[in-house]
């Protein structure tokens, strides 16, 4: 693909995204939707900019909490995923437990964390961690389980250990789906943090939104939502850049080798 086409594609995408917000604005105006139900994007952005100085520390708090929880979730997710992908007994044991755990609304778990670790950042980190590691587990495990035996045989014939095979075949093979899981996970990590912040914290975007919502300051609630969405997208963009480098082979982009 030429550079020109790539730029045009990006422009299209930007236009469509802007169009989405314009549509929202127009629909709200046309249907006369109350800003107490669904504020217009222009109101939300106005609120966001007006309150940004006050929101800033909360945003940093949420971002930091989420990142710690997310990194922890990724590490644990990869570890459990690798275990499940490699061992049949682990598969049969851990999967039902994890599915069961994952079906539980995490809001029921936060109080337990609060009790054990006090209110504040620690339970938020933990909530974010437990909510985000499952997609990673599942994709890593599936990727490992479906790795072509031929590729593994290359290493086995060399007398490679299981760890060697995992490292040199399993994990690279899994990368595209690992990155896919990251995209899901990072969003859930934010949800987890915010959840814990609404339940038991005096800081963070979740807390802001909760107090805004109990004050019926709906534009501020949505400003919080936009901040979360923005943070999610920002991290997604960061991952995408890494992903391009790491998993370009899988989509065989012509510009991959040159990138």
């Amino acid at each position, binding site marked *: 693909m030429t550079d020109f086409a790539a730029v045009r594609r990006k422009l299209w995408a930007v236009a469509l995204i802007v169009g989405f917000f314009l549509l929202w604005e127009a629909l709200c105006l046309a249907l006369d939707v109350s800003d*107490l*139900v669904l504020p217009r994007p222009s109101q939300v952005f106005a609120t966001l900019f007006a*309150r940004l100085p*006050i929101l800033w520390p909360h945003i940093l708090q949420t971002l930091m909490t989420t990142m710690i929880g997310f990194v922890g979730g990724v590490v644990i997710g990869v570890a459990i995923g690798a275990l499940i992908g490699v061992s049949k007994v682990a598969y049969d044991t851990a999967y039902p437990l994890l599915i069961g755990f994952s079906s539980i609304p995490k809001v029921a778990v936060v*109080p337990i964390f*609060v*009790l054990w670790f*006090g*209110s504040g950042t620690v339970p938020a980190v933990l909530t974010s961690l437990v909510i985000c590691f499952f997609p990673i587990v599942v994709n890593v495990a599936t990727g490992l389980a479906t790795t072509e035996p031929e590729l593994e045989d290359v290493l086995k014939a060399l007398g490679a250990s299981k760890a060697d095979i995992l490292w040199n075949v399993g994990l690279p093979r899994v990368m595209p789906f690992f990155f896919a899981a990251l995209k899901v996970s990072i969003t859930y990590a934010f949800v987890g943090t915010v959840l814990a912040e609404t*339940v*038991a*914290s*005096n800081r963070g975007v979740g*807390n*802001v939104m*909760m*107090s*805004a*919502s*109990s*004050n*019926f*300051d709906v534009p*501020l609630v949505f400003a919080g939502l936009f901040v979360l969405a923005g943070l999610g997208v920002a991290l997604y963009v960061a991952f995408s850049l890494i992903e391009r480098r790491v998993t370009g082979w899988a989509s065989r982009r012509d510009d991959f080798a040159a990138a």
Partner: protein
Amino acid sequence: DTKIKFTLGWKTQGSDAAFMLAKDKGYFKEEGLDVQIDQGEGSGATVTRIMSGAWDAGFGDVNAIIQNAAQRPDAAPVMVYQMWNRPPFAVVTKAEAGVKSPKDLEGKTLGGAQGTPTTRLISVFAKTNGVDMEKVKLSNMAPNLQEPMLIRGDIDGAMVFTLTSYFNLVLNRQDPDKDYRWLNFGDYGLDLYSNGMMVSRKLLKENPKAVAGLVKAVNRAAIEIGKDQEAGMKAIEAYDNLVNLAVEKRRLQFAYEKLMVSPEAAEIGLGDIKDDRMKKAIDIVVQGYGLPRAPEPSEIFSREFLPARAERELVYTAN
């Protein structure tokens, strides 16, 4: 300093000003206390939070203490400062619905959040006032949906906290006085106490001095705010700069006017209760919640830590 973890009844509200002021002005510090104030999940949840051991003290509903004391007398927290003398429980309806007395609720749909005292006590309220609950439809919803659904007409009435709902209606650009009718439980035979400061049994046993200090500091702040609400609002702003100060100030004044200033408070001072009224209140709660036993007022409330009567003389002047 003794570290105290303190939970509010809800997110920051103007009516919490006493705690912020006590912290801000160092009244806690003077008592040798290092108090950390956390926002809460509901005035009922304050009780569970303290029972779980994660918090030492908090601002919450005495009726929830009664409920828990009936079942787990050794675990339930103890009220040490009964801040709100009158109950904020009410059913609010639109004026045009024509609900003038409880009896008019028959045939209507009421929305309420599960587990709030108002929702729990609605059947006692109905029974006391000869309303047939069979004819009242109840619908569950989260607290912040009550007013919007009421405004939209999805429900005919909402079972609310006056203090919260009044201002929610204001924030929803309604006129809560002109366009809405309030059936206050207190006016219809449910003469209950409501929120106050409670502490865990553990703190009570292990560090009574800290409890006394806590009560002293909060009382001092509450009395002060009676004369100067602006000072309270400054403390609120310092604690949480996101709130709508104008509304919260009105809420603070509402709390003083409607819930704290009362003939009883004038008689016995802020923070204390009358045991016989409490006994009646306990009976109402026991009946309403279908509890296995009725705890004694002494299990619920301890006046041991209250400062002298003179220090608890509430003089309220709106400013």
